[in-house]
């Protein structure tokens, strides 16, 4: 499959001496839904800033659908739509103008620009608000406005920098659905998010950046397969007097009616229930303690220095 994005040895050192990116190289296939994860200050926004020409790189190369950002910037930029982390539209302009003007910057005729603005605002449920001052929109509406604006040039590569930050779960879910649809329609998507559930649910491939370095770059499935242990929380039918000693599983006491159990990937969960049953303990319900990806993410970032994987 052709490459939507190719980054080679990308470095960024800010004027104050802060090195935000160190020799980052990665590739995103056309049509992919790619997650870019990392803790705060890891360099994700700097990387996205370089891709969208808002940050000047110190060294390295970026190619978007085969167009080098240094030698053919106009063609490279024409392929991109950006939904930044912070609101960056004129708060004193109405949504319809914001979206139509953005189309104009891509050389789209005014009539067609308004047509596309109408389509996007309707899809993102903002059509009723098209003439109000943007500053009066709610946080969720502002985020959707930025998505409507980013899609107006029909980008082949859509970059979303924490698009669902601060929006309620209902809007987040509807945004996920929408993003899946446009990805299914062929748009390559790069997503950064703090909601690891979001990355696990949406992304086929994931890269993790920490302290400016790429520490993981693989498929979501492979990443999750690398989890050796999962922790489950068990809600019990009756209160326990003490913690039973199990032969095959490690369990912890949370309170008299709640236990935590660590289960290796290779072990059967049935043996846990059999053993609990032998001790007269009945389990009412069971859930994952943490999001699986979150667990892995924490392991990678915390043990970053020891377990870095060169890609």
């Amino acid at each position, binding site marked *: 499959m052709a490459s939507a994005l190719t980054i080679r040895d990308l470095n960024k050192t800010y004027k104050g001496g802060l090195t935000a990116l160190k020799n980052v190289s990665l590739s995103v296939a056309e049509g992919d839904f790619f997650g870019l994860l990392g803790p705060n200050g890891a360099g994700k926004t700097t990387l996205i800033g370089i891709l*969208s020409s808002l940050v000047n790189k110190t060294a390295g190369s970026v190619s978007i659908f085969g167009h080098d950002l240094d030698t053919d910037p106009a063609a490279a930029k024409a392929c991109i739509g950006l939904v930044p982390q*912070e*609101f960056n539209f004129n708060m004193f302009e109405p949504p319809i103008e914001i979206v139509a003007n953005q189309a*104009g910057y891509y050389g789209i005729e*005014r009539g067609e620009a308004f047509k596309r603005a109408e389509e996007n605002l309707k899809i993102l449920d903002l059509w009723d608000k098209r003439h109000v001052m943007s500053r009066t929109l709610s946080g969720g509406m502002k985020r959707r406005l930025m998505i409507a604006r980013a899609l107006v040039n029909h980008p082949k590569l859509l970059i979303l920098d924490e698009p669902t930050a601060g929006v309620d779960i209902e809007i987040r879910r509807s945004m996920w659905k929408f993003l899946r649809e446009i990805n299914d329609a062929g748009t390559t998507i790069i997503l950064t998010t703090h909601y690891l559930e979001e990355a696990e649910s949406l992304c086929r491939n994931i890269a993790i950046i920490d302290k400016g370095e790429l520490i993981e770059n693989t498929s979501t499935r492979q990443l999750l397969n690398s989890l050796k242990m999962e922790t489950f929380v068990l809600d019990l039918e009756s209160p326990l007097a003490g913690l039973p000693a199990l032969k095959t599983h490690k369990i912890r006491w949370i309170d008299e009616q709640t236990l935590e159990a660590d289960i290796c990937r290779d072990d059967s969960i049935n043996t846990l229930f059999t053993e609990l049953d032998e001790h007269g303990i009945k389990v009412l319900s069971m859930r994952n303690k943490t999001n699986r990806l979150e667990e892995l993410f924490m392991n990678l970032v915390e043990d970053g220095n020891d377990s870095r994987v060169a890609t």
Partner: protein
Amino acid sequence: MNTHEKLIALKAIVTKEVLRFSRIWIQTVLPPVITTALYFIIFGNLIGPRIGEMDGFDYMEFIIPGLIMMAVITNSYANVVSSFYGSKFQRHIEEMLISPVPNYIILIGYITGGVARGLTVGVAVTIVSLVFHPLNIHSLWVMFSMIILTAILFSLAGLINGVYAKSFDDISIIPTFVLTPLTYLGGIFYSINMLPEFWQHMSLANPILYMVNAFRYGFLGVSDISLMTSYAISIAFIIALYLYSLHLLRKGHGIRT
């Protein structure tokens, strides 16, 4: 981007800029018209008759071109500096920076917006001046070309100020401490022939003097400075400021990290 697409992008920027100042016309167009009307009343109507003639013309007739020019200078400058700094402050300059629109189109778009506001205010002030004195036009071509050149020049200056500005204070320092004194000392209210020789020479260092005098020539047919010198200086400044503005945009000064 082909030429047609670039023109569409330019139209989008200009439309946005014109809508911006039109939407807030009470802040952008009305105040300079009121201020200039007060100048006409106080300096032209009340004090003017006591001053008598200036270069052979009624004082009111003499100051009208200068006051129109002053309104165009301050409004062209103010439009671009506030719009550009506002777009940096709210970060919506990024809308253009991520798009394929070339830097020179962004620059021309902002300049056209500044010229549009300068001319809008200039026309409004000219209409108000008709209340006080009939319009005397010696050369429409000189009048029109000089007002356009001046609006372009001060729009460019406003953009440079906007690029360097890091706070709202920074966008008012230059207009207050540089632009206003130079405008007042640029021969709006007097002919430099009235000044002692030393101050006449000092006045020649003020670029606004050349523009005001050439513009006045368009109305009255008299100027303290040769027309060719005025055009040469205006065009030279425009070229220099244009190239410098383009350099700043290319470098991403203050807009890219």
